[in-house]
């Protein structure tokens, strides 16, 4: 009998909801408008990352709307209209009414998830691997949790106006601070911290994690747990405070029950502030999103890394890999759904590999700014791979994990190997010539006072005259014997400059008589081979990581062209070099 009441009430609520045009408008039409508007506006066609962002945003709109307005205000309306009063005299409890609201909210929302995912797939060519089961679990629990929070609004509000005010007060901040509407990183620090306490943030990070990083529901178990707990509290409070008639008023103090629902999230937020996992996660999501942008580099000279040159061709980057290398004409960017990069007169080559560096140890803390700054300097200078030759701090593995996850921006950290026998840059410095700090890249990336300080410290050392010439002779000898080593900036040494050294080194190699083509091969495919990373780095070939460098001019004719960097791609992410440099300079002042 009880079950019959639940079923009948749920069925009728569902019918009534579907008859209500307002509900259909808010559930389907409005999110659809947002979906199309943002989809077109945010370049979702060329970037699965942007599409994922749009999907998450639209899902958040839907979940929050269904919860606060569909659940909360609806229930208040039924009470105000005297509808609940009629049910009051029938032998039913609030439970079937609340259950029906929850189930209806869920049942009406889930088709919209299917609609948007289908649209993303067919209209925008969104081809990310989708963990549909996990997405449905997280979104379903989200809808139910927010629906129950909506019901609590109805429980504590004494009038329509009140419930509308409470709903708005919860809806807007949660939408804005969840990260769905505005990227969290652009918010002030304290707002970012505040966001950690909002249920919506957990839901957003959950959906984004699943859409962008291929996470599972299990990976998001903390958030799911918090939402389930909040749902349980909210339902319990809703039953306790349930009112059938508008004449029964709830005491102002009872409104504090809303706070009870927030308790799981307060705990979660406090934990997040303590362990900073979400902050990290937000950075990873952002990085993943950037890595998924599709690019089509057109009309470019390609140095493939193994010595061959395509005089005019193109490269299609998708999902952080090189999807296609074109010889001759490149297709229309719209045809391949990619953002075009016109590169006439430029040269594309694999990003360089620096085969011998040492990470700045700092205080032995891998999260140290020094490491991050060094990694940024390499990326800025077109370096896409680093062999860490001495690792006294044992940092390499931790740094590699952070770079791979996307938490940090940086070149791939390659397995350590013996340091190359020669570094002309190191030899030049030993001879007392700090020419590297006058290179364009160094000047662009580092603040003047920092470089001067470095030079001053260097000046205190006893120079070894003729060191460069001796090293150059050794290099020529190795070249003649066919044993050209991989180049390295030797930023392992004390007071060395991380980043621009490798380009400087290659210039010294060419001055020493090594042909540019050989120097470049040594810095790309040969270095990758030596580090066992040939399946990912060192060549422009389909299936490899899109870790690439585009420079003005032709470094095969003028090696100094390597310093005139136009674009750097690391695993498909086009590096915002200007931003990196200005951020670095600011921190060095």
């Amino acid at each position, binding site marked *: *009998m009880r079950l*019959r*009441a639940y*079923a*009948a*009430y749920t069925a*009728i609520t569902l*019918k*009534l909801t579907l*008859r*209500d045009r307002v509900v259909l408008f808010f559930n389907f039409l409005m999110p659809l408008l947002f979906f199309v508007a943002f989809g077109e506006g945010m370049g979702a066609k060329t970037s699965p990352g942007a599409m994922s962002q749009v999907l998450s945003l639209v899902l958040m709109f839907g979940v929050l709307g269904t919860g606060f307005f569909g659940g909360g205000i609806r229930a208040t309306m*039924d009470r105000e*209209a*005297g*509808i609940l*009063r*009629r049910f*009051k*005299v*029938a*032998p*039913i409890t609030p439970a079937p009414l609340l259950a029906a609201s929850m189930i209806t909210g869920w049942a009406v929302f889930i088709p919209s998830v299917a609609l948007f995912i289908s649209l993303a797939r067919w209209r925008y060519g969104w081809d990310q691997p989708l963990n549909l089961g996990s997405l449905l679990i997280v979104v379903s629990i989200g809808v139910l949790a927010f629906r129950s929070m909506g019901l609590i609004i109805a429980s504590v509000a004494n009038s329509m106006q009140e419930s509308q005010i409470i709903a708005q007060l919860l809806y807007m901040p949660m939408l804005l601070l969840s990260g769905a509407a505005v990227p969290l990183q652009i918010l002030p620090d304290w707002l970012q911290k505040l966001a950690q306490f909002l249920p919506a943030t957990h839901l957003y990070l959950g959906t984004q994690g699943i859409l962008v990083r291929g996470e599972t529901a299990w990976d998001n178990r903390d958030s799911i747990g918090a939402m389930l707990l909040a749902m349980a509290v909210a339902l319990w409070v809703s039953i306790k405070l349930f009112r059938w008639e508008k004449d029964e008023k709830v005491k102002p103090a009872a409104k504090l029950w809303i706070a009870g629902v927030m308790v799981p999230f307060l705990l979660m937020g406090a934990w997040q502030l303590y362990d900073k996992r979400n902050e990290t996660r937000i950075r990873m999501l952002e990085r993943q999103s950037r890595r998924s942008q599709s690019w089509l580099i057109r009309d470019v000279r390609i140095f493939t890394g193994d010595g061959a040159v395509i005089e005019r061709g193109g490269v299609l980057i998708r999902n952080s890999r090189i999807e296609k290398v074109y010889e001759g004409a490149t297709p229309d960017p719209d045809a391949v759904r990619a953002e075009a990069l016109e590169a006439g007169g430029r040269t594309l080559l694999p990003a360089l590999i620096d085969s011998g560096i040492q990470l700045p140890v700092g205080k032995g803390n891998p999260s140290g700014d020094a490491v991050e700054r060094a990694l940024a300097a390499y990326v800025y200078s077109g370096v896409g791979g680093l062999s860490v030759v001495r690792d006294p701090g044992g940092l390499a593995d931790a740094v590699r994990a952070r770079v791979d996850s996307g938490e940090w921006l940086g070149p791939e950290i390659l397995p350590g190997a013996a340091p190359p026998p020669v570094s002309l840059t190191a030899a030049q410095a030993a001879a007392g010539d700090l020419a590297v700090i006058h290179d364009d890249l160094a000047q662009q990336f580092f603040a003047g006072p920092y470089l001067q300080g470095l030079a001053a410290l260097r000046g205190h050392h006893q120079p070894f005259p003729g060191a460069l010439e001796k090293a150059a002779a050794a290099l020529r000898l190795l070249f003649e014997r066919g044993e050209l080593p991989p180049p390295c900036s030797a930023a392992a040494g004390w007071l060395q400059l991380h980043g621009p050294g490798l380009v400087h080194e290659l210039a010294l190699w060419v001055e020493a008589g090594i042909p540019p083509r050989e120097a470049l091969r040594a810095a790309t495919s040969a270095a990758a081979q030596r580090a066992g990373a040939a399946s990912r780095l060192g060549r422009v070939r389909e299936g490899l990581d899109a870790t690439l460098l585009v420079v003005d001019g032709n470094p095969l004719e003028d090696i100094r062209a390597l310093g005139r960097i136009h674009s750097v791609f690391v695993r498909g992410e086009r590096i915002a070099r200007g931003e990196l440099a200005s951020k670095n300079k600011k921190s060095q002042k």
Partner: protein
Amino acid sequence: MSDSPAAIRVQGLRKLYGSFEAVRGISFEVAPGEIFGLLGPNGAGKTTTVEILEGLRQRSAGEVSVLGFDPEKETGEVKDRIGVALQATNLPEKIKVQEAAELFAAFYTRSVAVDDLLRKLQIWDKRNALYGTLSGGQKQRLALALALINDPELVFLDEPTTGLDPQVRLEIHTLVSRLKEQSRTVLLTTHYIEEAERLCDRVAIIDEGRIAAMGSPRELQERVLGHARVEVSTAQPMPQELPESWQGQVAISMNDGRTRLSASAAKPARVVVELVRWLESAGIEIEDLHIKRPTLEDVFLELTGKSLRE
């Protein structure tokens, strides 16, 4: 009252809202098959009393039994067995008549066939209409249908015709009368005197939380105001000499011109006969003659000093 146990038994019922005593010791019984009316102005305590009986409110003191159950402790049992048509309730705008009936049918252990019920209440034609499109009368007929969906022995009707136009009110009255034919017990609250007079076997007049009087409408009229009045008006002044048989039996009042007379008597028909004879023998022409019975309205006014309709 019949020998079978009472459908409703209320003994010394009290209800306090804070320091305000809304119900101050009410006792009454309703026999099975009876239509019992609670008559009183707004705020008299009618609704509170009824809601306690329906299991919606807790009482402060007293004994209450509804169909043998205590509505406070056995709320589910009571709710499952009674039918209720409440004042000022609504159904969702977009629900269809038949859907509403089927929904409520699902709430009860026992339910009647929805089709028959809608036909009996003459809303079968409207079964696919949305609630929001129904007229006031149709809504009220649906409310009655929902009150009868569980085939209840006892039906509570709270102001069933308030706000309806006279024609529709008559239709509802007919439907309520039919409930009696089906030997259901009905507890009706109203502030329409005519309704109580027309429908109720017995009426309790409630004022300020107390029962001021209780009985059949006729009994109440007679008990409170006693007698009917015979009123006559004539073209010429009436004689000074009154009929001898009226001495000490009939209370007389007359206007100054002796052209209007009002006689209050236990046997008004007899007074009429004597009055006509008396005036004819005096050769006086009668312009108007009628018997006036006191209404419940008069009773109410007499008992409470208030008008019901204010």
